[in-house]
């Protein structure tokens, strides 16, 4: 399924443009990171996708059909996972999912199969009789994901899913997202934790003040973290900078960072160069955070 967001504009009171002529598209199997500072218009865009809001102009097409003309199409095809978590003392996980399954029109065996499937996928089988209030944040996030998946949507929209989760829950969520993408779902995911997004996403859309700033990782360089057994300090930094493949280098913590051209070949060349100069790294790893760099670079001017 192809999702096309075309010239979307949403204006709130006093002429505040939450979303301003935003366009991008994504398809099945893709995970799109939707990045922007607070108030950039991410949630508004996602709410419009989920038919919870209506744009002032522009359109959203699912396989060429407008969801503004046919909201039921969006209800069937899109699973929305908002940033708020379900929390009730009088509803169990099973009842919560059962309600939404019925709300999507599932009944009888189809409903039972759908519930069993999402509970199994999200690891909620042993928690189905617990009330929502009894669950940890990570488990509530799983319930929220299960709810978004209960009608087997082709598109999943996740608003800040990793917000407030501990590292383990984040890793588990990342694995779930990857598994969903492998199952052919088109996923739009927003997060403030850019390193998380970078590991999950096939592409990214950066917005600020409702406008799209950049798509994909436009920077063609990568940072490599290095640590050496030798204790040569300043001298070592100078030697690093002498290397032709190194564009930039700096001390970082108890090691160094070197910026090289992106790609495996450039990393291999750097490693080869280090060994040829008698420098043996005890730590050599590409540094997560390219998305952070791009984000900081492209949003800097607008924030100032």
């Amino acid at each position, binding site marked *: 399924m192809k999702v096309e967001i075309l010239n979307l504009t949403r204006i709130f009171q006093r002429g505040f443009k939450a979303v301003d002529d935003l366009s991008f598209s994504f398809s099945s199997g893709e995970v799109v990171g939707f990045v922007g500072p607070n108030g950039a218009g991410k949630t508004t865009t996602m709410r419009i996708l989920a038919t919870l809001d209506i744009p002032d102009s522009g359109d959203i097409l699912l396989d060429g059909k407008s969801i503004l003309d046919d909201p039921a199409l969006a209800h069937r095809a899109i699973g929305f996972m908002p940033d708020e978590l379900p929390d009730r003392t*009088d509803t169990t996980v099973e009842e919560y999912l059962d309600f939404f399954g019925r709300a999507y029109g599932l009944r009888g065996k189809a409903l039972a199969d759908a519930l069993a499937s999402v509970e199994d996928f999200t690891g909620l089988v042993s928690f189905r009789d617990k009330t929502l209030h009894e669950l940890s944040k990570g488990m509530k996030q799983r319930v929220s994901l299960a709810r978004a998946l209960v009608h087997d949507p082709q598109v999943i929209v996740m608003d800040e899913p990793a917000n407030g989760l501990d590292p383990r829950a984040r890793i588990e969520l990342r694995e779930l997202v990857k598994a969903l993408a492998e199952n052919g779902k088109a996923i739009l995911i927003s997060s403030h934790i850019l390193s998380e997004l970078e590991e999950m996403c096939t592409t990214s859309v950066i917005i600020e003040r409702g406008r799209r700033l950049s798509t994909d990782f436009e920077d063609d360089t990568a940072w490599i973290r290095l640590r050496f057994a030798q204790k040569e300090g300043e001298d070592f930094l100078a030697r690093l900078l002498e290397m032709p493949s190194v564009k930039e280098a700096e001390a970082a913590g108890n090691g160094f960072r070197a910026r090289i051209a992106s790609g495996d070949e450039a990393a291999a060349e750097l490693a080869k160069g280090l060994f040829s100069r008698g420098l043996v790294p005890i730590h050599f790893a590409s540094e997560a955070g390219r998305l952070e760099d791009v984000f900081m670079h492209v949003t800097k001017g607008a924030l100032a």
Partner: protein
Amino acid sequence: MKNIFSINPVALRELRQLVRSKIITMSLAIFPGILFVFTMLAVSTAMRDKPPEELAFGDGLGNGPFTMVSVIAFIVACLGIPFYATMKAIMETKRDATGLEFTTALTPANIIGGRLAATAILIGATVATAMPFFIFAYLLRGIPLERVFLMPFCLFTYGLSTFAIALSVACRQGAVAFKVITTVLLFLLLLIFTNIPIIAGSMSSDSPAPLTIAVAVGLVLVAILLFFRAYCASLLSPPHVDGERPFRRVVFALFLLSSTLAFFGLDACNAWCITWVSIAGVLLIQSALSPREIPRAARGSAPRNFFLRLFSFPFTTGAVPGMLFAFLIIAIAGGIFSLRVTDSDEILILCSVVAEVTFAPILVGAILRRKKALPRTYRFAGWIMIALLCLVSVISFMAEVRAISSGAGEMLPCNFAGISEHPIEHFLNYGILLLFSVVIVAVSSISAFRKYRKPE
């Protein structure tokens, strides 16, 4: 066929939550006990007050216990449960700000219907619990049999209608505290104005229950229920759907059905007309202040045939169709009223009411729209309108009673003051106001109707 009998998911969810609710479980458990204690108290009081020979051959002891059970059941079924259910709805709306239900296949009508169904079951359970005590009171003699069946019916319908009205507060946007205060005030107003005493009075032991009154009250309550059910659903409708169409259809159906009242007598005609002009006035205020545009989904479903489109236009969501719809009701009601009532003074009074009811909202709506102050300032708009109405009425009323110079009074109409010695002047004043309203609505309607067609 299968879907007809499948339970509404919202009703199922609500029932599951009610079963888990400690307040509800405890209340249902102790309710029969309370009824038992108070019934016995009423019986013992009645026995103490009546001589033995009357106990054996007189009117019986049923009236006291019956009234006692009715009052307790009324407090629980018509006040307690609707209040609890409304508070629950308000808190849930606050908790689930996202409105995830609207991302599903559920329609606003399903959501409201589900809540009403769950509350109906709860009220039904309460009334059913009281039923053995009503029968017990009947067995003590002194109660006509129809009272035993009509009272539970009235309690059930009244409780559900009350909940539907209160739910319309819960569905509106606003602070929780404001909603709670409004709900409490609504309950008090309902208690005063909805004439539960009529139900009780019509079935008192002195005047055996006239079935027609009970049926009429029941029908009015059912009409209130249907009206507010549709109203709540329209309030809940997401902005992209044609949410007001079902509501206006229900209103128009109720309007047409109730128009038969106009042919019963002049008083009934008068009451019917004033009721519908008032309702149309409220709809007019709401429409004048609602977003101007017709939703794209509504335009998408516009009929291709010109006449069908023309017919369906006033039922479409949007400010201008809404104002046209209200005018349509006012025009039909006024037309029937004019045909039935021959007294020109009465017609003139109606004209003054209509002129005031239509003028203020349209003026305020137009000003606010021009200032681009909608919809953020809609709360103030209500106050501005009330102030305008009061000003218009009070100045002219004071002029009528010669409290101030008559110049200002004659410029403005006053429906409180009655008809002055110069009805023609009043007619001109009302006529100008009405003309102003009609011109604004007509011009806007023509412009909006041109855009009301399927997008290319």
